[in-house]
């Protein structure tokens, strides 16, 4: 009876010990007999990481609140160029596109030149410039007009 109890106690100790050891791995390496060198070449440490896809876009406008203000322009006149700077962080080659909404711009002409990214460009701080200018025809009545430009960056 006493022997049975002792065995049970040992089993309990074993269970707790097994849980404590399960959190990692221990490998032991002997130097070869008579050798003065030891290494873990038979079982190397193996770091591993999975890197997420990620892309960020920073848009810098000449004016606050993401605005590009051409000021007051006479009919028949032009304004600009003004630059919008775009900076992309992407860990994969990407494509940048833009779309204009000129619903509230009447007949005002918005000219834009967006530099295209170098093929396969990726990394941190990849910069582009969207250069804008406008021309106002006489058919446009006096008043304030605005448009919007949306930029989209997509990893290839």
């Amino acid at each position, binding site marked *: 009876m006493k022997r049975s109890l002792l065995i049970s106690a040992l089993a309990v100790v074993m269970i707790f010990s097994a849980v404590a050891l399960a959190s990692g791995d221990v490998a032991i390496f002997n130097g070869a007999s008579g050798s003065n060198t030891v290494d873990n070449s038979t079982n190397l440490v193996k*770091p591993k*990481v999975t890197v997420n896809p990620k892309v960020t876009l920073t848009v810098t406008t000449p004016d606050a609140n993401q605005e590009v203000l051409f000021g007051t322009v006479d009919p028949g006149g032009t304004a600009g160029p003004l630059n919008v700077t775009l900076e992309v962080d992407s860990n994969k080659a990407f494509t940048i596109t833009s779309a204009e909404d000129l619903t509230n711009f009447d007949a005002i002409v918005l000219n834009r030149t967006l530099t295209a990214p170098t093929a396969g460009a990726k990394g941190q701080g990849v910069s582009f410039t969207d250069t804008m200018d406008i021309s106002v025809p006489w058919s446009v009545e006096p008043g304030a007009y605005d448009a919007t430009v949306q930029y989209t960056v997509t990893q290839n």
Partner: protein
Amino acid sequence: MQEERSDILTERRVRTSIRAALAIRAFQASLALVVLVTGVAIAPSTAIAVSSSGQFAVSVTPAGAGMYANYTLASFTTGNKETTTRVAITFPAQCDISGATALNPNHYVISRTGSTVVLGFTTPYGPRTTFAVPLGNVRNPVTPGTYSIASPIVFTLQGGGTSNVSPPGRRLEFTILASPYIVMTVETPGDLQAVDFGTVDPGVTSAGQLVRVTVDSSADFTISRGLTGQFVEMGLGYPLLPTGPQLAGVRVFDDVLTVTPPWVADPGTYTAQIQYTAVQN
């Protein structure tokens, strides 16, 4: 008439003598039977169920002082009606059994207490079965010399108790050889020496992961680290290891690793390999 009487008397004496002799012999036979029965009853109920067989001995590989070695005790043989479920082996105190492992797939470590390792058998060994008990990762004494293992204790089922197994007139002795020794232990947070940083965004530094390298050397030594694989794409970060000679004895080096994946590396999974080397001066 007298002669006849004499003859009759003689006959009677003879007959009497025969009867007495027969009676005595019968008694003797009875006595012998009693003794035999008593002898069986007196025989110990804890008769040895498992015996040693062949050249019962312990082998140690490697046998250098301070090295981690495999110890094999062979051979055991179970008795005619016995089943063996486990064995307890007590090593000399100079051995380090804290990391002892079972080398036979049918065996598993139940406990390590003091100097005693208890091994269980997933499939018990049945009657008249010969088996060996190999153990791994037992550290040899650091002092050369001859050591002995106490008689292993084998636990049986039908026997209801333990049986001590030892070669008659011989202890389980082994010899540890003098040699310079250097032993390295590497502990990683993941199984199979893995360090898994999970998923990380580019440009972000992960939490540190600890790799602990312990070197036990009989002489001063230097330690270095070598990297292979995609450690650049991972942005693997690591501290400087101490340079110059490290003192003999047990030295611990904590290598806290990080990753900061660069933006120029595509999304995906990257792996690298790290080799640690310690060389005595």
